[in-house]
């Protein structure tokens, strides 16, 4: 049963990934399609197509895939520890908090590496939202969680926009990631993302069992001798690290962390040992598709990938709020 489910999810994930990579190869600014790239790969390794593939397309797609994984898993952890299907890094204000950290890194360069500053800020935002919702005391109120997250996020965004007015150069740098853009990501960004993102993903997978217990609800999990508060704090830290590092690379991309866990849950069900890797794959797939769309939709121009993901994700969120029974 388990094996069968895993193989289903692996198959689905692979198809999503393959389709997304294909859409990536065909889109884009330069006049290089799938055929040219295939030629460059199989023939003698020379030419424009190969250069474009190696230096532009490949790192960008890798970054998109990694971002989808980190954001998706971050969203899954948050949804489980809050027992709330509406949770995601963007809704809880963690994304926006991380963006404030990035501004800090621009204003005081050399204080800390931007990744870590953004992770620290994401963590602060997450803890504030959790404190508002009563999560640190052990009982999360779903309404206050979402509204508190919106308030924290709005406050953080006010801080981000505040810096626009301070300095024009700064404003330009900041504006680029307020929507979430991966157009200029090259290998260095992929390395930065992988260096923190992959270990954090591995740690998240190790947390899967605790998350399974958490999903039983407070009564069920405590009767099995599990301390929900420890899982809550560990999960929050991991979610903040995953979300912080992705924001530091690509800006606050919203809604991937919301969508990916929902798709994965449909595919494989609620067991986090299978759900977690499936979420990562689905996140990567959705993100790659969004990236492909962002290049294809307005070709030869590009729409930032964050805008595309918001256009897909916001109606989804609306639909979730309309039908979520847990809130009654």
């Amino acid at each position: 049963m388990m094996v069968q489910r895993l193989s289903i999810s692996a198959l689905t994930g692979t198809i999503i990934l393959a389709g997304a990579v294909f859409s990536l190869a065909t889109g884009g600014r330069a006049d290089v399609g799938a055929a040219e790239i295939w030629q460059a790969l199989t023939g003698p390794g020379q030419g424009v197509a190969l250069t474009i593939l190696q230096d532009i397309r490949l790192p960008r797609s890798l970054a998109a895939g990694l971002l989808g994984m980190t954001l998706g898993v971050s969203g899954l952890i948050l949804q489980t520890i809050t027992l709330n299907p509406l949770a995601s890094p963007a809704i809880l204000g963690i994304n926006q908090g991380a963006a404030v950290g990035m501004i800090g890194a621009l204003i005081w360069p050399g204080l800390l590496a931007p990744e870590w500053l953004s992770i620290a800020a994401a963590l602060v935002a997450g803890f504030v939202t959790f404190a508002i919702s009563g999560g640190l005391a052990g009982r999360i109120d779903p309404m206050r969680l979402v509204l508190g997250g919106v308030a924290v996020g709005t406050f953080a965004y006010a801080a981000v926009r505040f810096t626009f007015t301070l300095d024009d150069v700064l404003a330009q740098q900041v504006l680029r990631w307020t929507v979430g853009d991966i157009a200029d990501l090259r290998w260095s960004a992929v390395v930065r993302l992988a260096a923190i993102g992959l270990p954090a993903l591995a740690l998240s997978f190790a947390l899967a069992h605790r998350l399974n217990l958490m999903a039983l609800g407070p009564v069920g999990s405590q009767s099995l001798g599990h301390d929900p508060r420890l899982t809550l704090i560990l999960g929050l830290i991991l979610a903040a690290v995953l979300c912080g590092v992705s924001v530091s690379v690509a800006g606050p991309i919203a809604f991937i962390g919301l969508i990916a866990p929902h798709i994965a849950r449909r595919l494989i069900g609620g067991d986090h040992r299978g759900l977690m890797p499936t979420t990562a794959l689905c996140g990567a797939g959705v993100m790659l598709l969004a990236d492909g769309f962002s290049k294809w939709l307005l070709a030869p121009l590009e729409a930032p990938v964050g805008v595309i993901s918001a256009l897909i994700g916001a109606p989804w969120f609306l639909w979730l709020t309309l039908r979520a029974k847990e809130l009654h």
Partner: protein
Amino acid sequence: MRPGTLIALLGLALAATLCWSLMVGAVPVRIGVVLNTLFGLDGPRQDFIITRSRLPRGLLAALTGGALALSGAIIQTILRNDLASPKIIGINAGAALGVLTASLLLPKLSASYLPLAAAVGAALAAGLVFLLFELRAVSSARLILIGVALGLFFEAIVDFLLITVPGAAVSGPLIWLTGSLWERGWPELSLIWLPLTVLFAITGLLSYRLDLLRLGRAQAVGLGVRVRRERLVLLTLATMLAALSVSVVGVMGFVGLMAPHLARALVGWRHRLLLPAAGLIGAILVTFADATGRIIAPPAEISAGILTAFIGAPFFIVILWRNRREVQP
């Protein structure tokens, strides 16, 4: 202190804030010069700065702040939920979407149609909220969540429009979206003062019905109120108030949330007193935020909407925290 005295004091505070907002900015003007200019007295004057730029701006800030506050007060009463506001239930974002769609897709459209576009967009959001609330009878707590989602959806479309419409001037809308009175003056004021005044008057006339609706559905029906119709009328009123202010000053967050709360703390729940108090407080908030935004980093300006968010978001969190027993859905 008697409520009447309190409202008079709020009026004085608004006058003082307006006066102060005329004094401050990239070029500070002394109070004597301001008074000379305003009342046409002898002595040194600053006609250009005061009458051409700061006076209409201050008046606009006061009017739109008052409108947002009244809108928030009405919405909080008819939904019977402290956390509601035109921004939270998605009306502001709807208005913003209407204005941006009109101005980006029809660049030749005269600016005087923008309030109409805002009203259409806001009515879209409010209509959905109303339908859900009345027909599907969702709880007001969930309605707020739906409003948040609707707002996010509209914002996503706004972002998409801003980025994809070819040749769009983006910096103007970006400033406007944060809520700013930058480069606003007599033309905008002449456009909205009359409709807003009419709406203020209607709101005042309906204050008694708000008192009744506040009692809750069962009691209101028992007292002979046709609840659904009254709610529709009042929600339309609140939507128009918010839409008109958004069409001019953009998405000014949290004013509609904060002002009614502060007003209730001062004068209590009776809308005959609550509405004027909330309106005055809203006017003071926006005027103050606009003036403060001009003196933080002159000659650059901080958008008033950023400052209201800085105050409003923590305020909202405090309300959430204090209501933690009550908001359970």
